[in-house]
């Protein structure tokens, strides 16, 4: 796949704090790439540097063959985390304004606006005042504003935040559709289930540093060990004594057994002791959410300990 965006060794400091440390990744045509990380990890700063809203101290951002200030920003769509709309204007006017800033022809923009308004359940709202829209409707209009000009690269910072589950599904489908049609998408989100279900690759950042970078399958193979969920009345100590078990989380009669990375699941199941109470049993890979929480908390904890020792 053709490389659309390339971020290389991005570094940025605010006052004396380094907020980005050698961040590098690529986004390809037609793929959905997730940029993940806890709050304050540096996601939005990375995105703002890509968008030219701020510029890095070191490193480069390349869009096709254009670098830095030469990047044609009208070919990029952007939905920032901090977003809103002008209040006292009509929906169509604000969409046409966004399109004009992206140098997109007015008539085509009007047509696309109508198509997307209908697709997102806002048919008939084109001449309504923005003030009359609900929060969810407003977010849909903002989303349309970011894609109205047929961008080659679409950057979405927390596109699902504040949306109800139905709207989240609609957004997810629309984003997947755009990727299918060739748009390169860079997406930041805390909704791990949605990220897992739609993204091809991911880049995880914590405290300004790369933590994980790769395809969803690679990440799962590398980080997502197996876990065994058992419903039954069991002692924690008894479960912890089972070979290859690294950790046990217990709540009422549900026990989750986290297994070592190179465990052979079928062999492991055969050697389970006969004296444990099993009403139900399932084996899954740990979710992206659990990987995210584990990595974020481990790293933060490690750094806090390091800082305390220092």
């Amino acid at each position, binding site marked *: 796949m053709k490389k659309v965006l390339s971020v290389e060794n991005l570094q940025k400091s605010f006052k004396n704090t380094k907020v980005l440390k050698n961040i590098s990744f690529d986004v390809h045509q037609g793929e959905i790439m997730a940029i993940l990380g806890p709050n304050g990890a540096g996601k939005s700063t990375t995105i703002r540097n890509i968008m*030219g*809203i701020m510029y890095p101290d070191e490193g480069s951002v390349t869009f096709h063959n254009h670098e830095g200030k030469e990047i044609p920003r009208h070919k990029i769509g952007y939905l*920032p985390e*901090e977003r*809103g709309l*002008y209040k006292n204007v009509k929906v169509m006017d604000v969409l046409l304004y966004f399109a*004009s*800033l992206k140098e997109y022809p007015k008539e085509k923009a009007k047509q696309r606006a109508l198509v997307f308004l209908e697709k997102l359940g806002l048919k008939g709202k084109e001449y309504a005042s923005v003030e009359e829209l609900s929060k969810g409707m407003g977010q849909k209009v*903002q989303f349309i504003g970011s894609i109205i000009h047929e961008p080659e690269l679409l950057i979405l910072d927390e596109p699902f935040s504040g949306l109800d589950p139905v709207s989240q599904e609609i957004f997810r489908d629309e984003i997947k559709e755009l990727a299918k049609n060739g748009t390169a998408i860079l997406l930041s989100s805390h909704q791990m289930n949605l990220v897992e279900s739609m993204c091809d690759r991911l880049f995880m950042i914590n405290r300004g540093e790369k933590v994980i970078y790769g395809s969803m399958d690679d990440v799962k193979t590398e980080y997502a060990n197996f876990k065994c969920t058992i419903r039954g009345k069991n002692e924690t100590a008894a479960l912890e004594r089972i070979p290859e078990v690294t950790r046990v989380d217990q709540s009422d009669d549900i026990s989750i057994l986290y297994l070592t990375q190179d465990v052979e699941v079928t062999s492991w199941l055969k050697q389970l002791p006969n004296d444990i109470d099993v009403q139900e049993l399932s084996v899954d890979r740990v979710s992206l959410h659990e990987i995210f929480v584990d990595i974020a908390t481990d790293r933060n904890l490690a750094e806090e300990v390091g800082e305390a020792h220092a």
Partner: protein
Amino acid sequence: MKLMRNSMKVAKWEFKRNIRNKSFIISLFLTPVLFILFSTAPTLLSNLSEDEEAGTTVYLNDQLGVYEAIEPMIENEDFVDWNVVETSDQPKAMQSQLKEQEDAAYVLINEESLKSGLVTFMIGDDLDKGFENELQVFQQPLKQMQLQQAGLSQDQMQLVNTPIQYELAEVETAAGDKSTEEAMGGFPYESAIPGIFAGLVLFSIVISGMMIFQSASQEKKDKVAEIILSSVTAGELMQGKILGYFTLGILQVGVWITLALPIALWKLEDVPVLEYLFVPETALLTFIAVLGYLLFASLFVGLGATVEDYTTSGNFQGMVMMLPFLPFVLIAPIFSNPSGIVAQVASFVPFTAPGVLIMRLSVLDEWPWVEILIAIVVLLASIWIFMKLAGKIFQIGILIYGKNATPQEIWKWLKA
């Protein structure tokens, strides 16, 4: 080229957005209406109250026939507002009448008045001693009668009656220069009209420039800034706003002048308003007004980006917003001495220069070209510096959410 194109898009949007805004439309038409109302209301009200008052009833016992000479003056209400009732009653008989009619007066003019120069009068309780001044209308006819009795000829009487006049000789003034001014009651319309026009332009565009402050902070509050900044640079956004609100200000002036000009032409029928307006001086004064706008607009746009919500802006921001009104404090010293030290110094201070220059040049016969040139250079340099500083503040401030920036923070941004 692209920079200008993007700025123009922003400018067009700001113009379109505000021109459809109800509060802008209302203020556009309401301001001149209010202005006209406030400027004409006192006269209208006083006329109304004058109409309601019937005037002072004056019972006149005129035994010499003096009234005949002053009757036209009294009827025209040129000097006094009297309802004269001729009577032959003596003072004693009138006393009870004046007790009942408290807003009336009685005047007795007889042979004794002519001999002794003493006119007897009585007033009701509602009248004050100011009525004595009104009695001066009898001065000339009575004096004429006295001189006639003394046996003076007509020419001698005229000479005696002609008051001594004093004439101020002009130094180095071209002949005819003062004639129109004198004809217009001493007001220098010729130099003042371009000044009034430029002052109006400055006032209007600075007022609309203040809306930039609101627009920038509103954009922050509504969280639209980052979306816009993904398409245009902070500099383009800032320039677009300055340009957009400038156009709104000019439109405002256009509407105001369209409404005010017919009234001005009607009220000042003897003054060639248009002839005085379309002169090169107007162009220079308007240029100074535009420079003033650019200076304050850059200040306001930068300041707007430091405020999360303009309704909660701090003292610092409030103080900066007052800067355009600084020249009003200097009105008295500038008009009393337009070439004085206060006027000169204020011409070189960027925040006061536009207003002060317009005021000074509206009243000065000879323009101090060197001072004007220096002031314009100072203004241009200040605009350049303020645009740069505002750009820095705007770029950082517009993306800071959740609080108003303190002067210390703004200072840090400027140093960054």
